[in-house]
C-alpha cells in the first residue's frame, strides 16, 4: 500500500473536491455550532452568580464604610451622654452649694443671721436632681469653701 496523504496535495486536488468539501463542511460546522450554542445557553450561569463579584465589591465597600458610620453614631451618642452628665454634675454642684449654705445658715442663725447685708448675697435658685426646688440665699463672702466649689 502506498500513502497518498499530503505529499502532492496541492497539485492533484481539483476544484471540485475543494468546493465539495467547503460546501459540505460549512453547514455541518454551522449545525455543530448551533447545537453547541443551544447547549451552552442552557449551561449559562444565573445572573446572580455572574454579578457575584460586583456584589462582593459592593459589600466590601459597604463593610469599609459601615464601621465609620457606626463610629460616628456612637461618638454622637457619647457626646450627648457627656453633655447630659455635665448638666447633671452642674445641677448636683448647685444642690451641694445650696445644702452647704443651708447648713451654714442653720449653724449661724443663733448669732448673726440678720447681720449680713442684703447686697452681699448671691442668690442661687434651681431644681435639684430629684426635681426638688432649691431656692436659697448664699453668702459667699462668709463661706470660703463656696469659692473653691465654684
Amino acid at each position, binding site marked *: 500500500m502506498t500513502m497518498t*496523504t499530503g*505529499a*502532492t496535495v496541492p497539485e492533484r486536488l481539483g476544484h471540485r473536491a475543494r*468546493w*465539495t*468539501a*467547503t460546501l459540505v463542511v460549512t453547514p455541518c460546522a454551522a449545525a455543530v455550532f448551533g447545537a*453547541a*450554542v443551544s447547549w451552552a*445557553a442552557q449551561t449559562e450561569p444565573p445572573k446572580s452568580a455572574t454579578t457575584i463579584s460586583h456584589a462582593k465589591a459592593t459589600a466590601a465597600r459597604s463593610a469599609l464604610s459601615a464601621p465609620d458610620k457606626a463610629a460616628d453614631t456612637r461618638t454622637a451618642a457619647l457626646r450627648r451622654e457627656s453633655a447630659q452628665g455635665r448638666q447633671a454634675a452642674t445641677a448636683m454642684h448647685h444642690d451641694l452649694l445650696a445644702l452647704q449654705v443651708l447648713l451654714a445658715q442653720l449653724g449661724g442663725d443663733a448669732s448673726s443671721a440678720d447681720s449680713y447685708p442684703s447686697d452681699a448675697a448671691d442668690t442661687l435658685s434651681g431644681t435639684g436632681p430629684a426635681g426638688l426646688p432649691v431656692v436659697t440665699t448664699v453668702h459667699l463672702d462668709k463661706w470660703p469653701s463656696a469659692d473653691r466649689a465654684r
Partner: protein
Amino acid sequence: MSALAARRHRGVRAGTLVAAITLSAGITGLIVGSAAQQIAGRHLAVWVVGRASAMCAYVLLVALVLMGLLLSHPWRARVRRPSTAARIRLHITLSVFTLVFITLHIVILATDRYAGVGWWGALVPMGASYRPVAITIGLIAVWSGLLAGITAALAGRLPRRLWWPIHKVASVALVLAWLHSVLGGKDTVALFVLYIPTAALLVVVGVSRYVAHQPADRIAELH
C-alpha cells in the same frame, strides 16, 4: 455540436455549483441566525458564544483527527467513496474550520471579563486567573496543533520524511485539547456524553490504524 454540448455541460456545472452554494449558504445562515436568536438579549451572550465555539472546535478537531487517521489507515483502499482527493480536501477544510473556531474561542475568552482569562492568560502559560493549569494545557495544544498544521501546509514543498513525523504531533494536540476540555469545563454530563465516547472512538480507530500497519506501509511512508 460537440461545442454546444460542452457549453451546455459547463452551464449545467455552473448552475449546479450556484445551487449548491445557495443551498449551503442558506442552511448555514438559517442555523447561525437561529443560534443568534437564542442568545440575543442574554446577559452572558458573549460567554455562551465562546463556550459554544470551544465545543464546536472540539467536535471539528475530533472529525479532523478521525479523517487524518482514515487517510493514513492501511484499510483506506477498501473505501472508494469519497475519493482520496475529496477526503484530503475534507481534512484540510476541517482543519481550517477548527482553526477558525479555536481562534473565536480564544478571542472571546480573552476579551470577556467574566471568563477571567484575558489576553495575558490566553497567550502566556499560567497567566490566567481562571483554572490556569487547564488553560495552559489548552495553550500548548494550540501550539502543537499549529505546528502540525503548518507542517502539513508545507507538505507539497517538503519531503515526506521531514513533515510527516512532525505532523504526528497532532495526536499530542488532540490529547491536550481533550484534557483542556475536561479540566476547563465543569459539566460532568457533557464529559460523559461527548468527551468519553469521542475519546473511545479515537482510541479505537488509532489502535486499529497502527495494528493493521504492515511493514510495506512503513517503507512506503519513507518515500
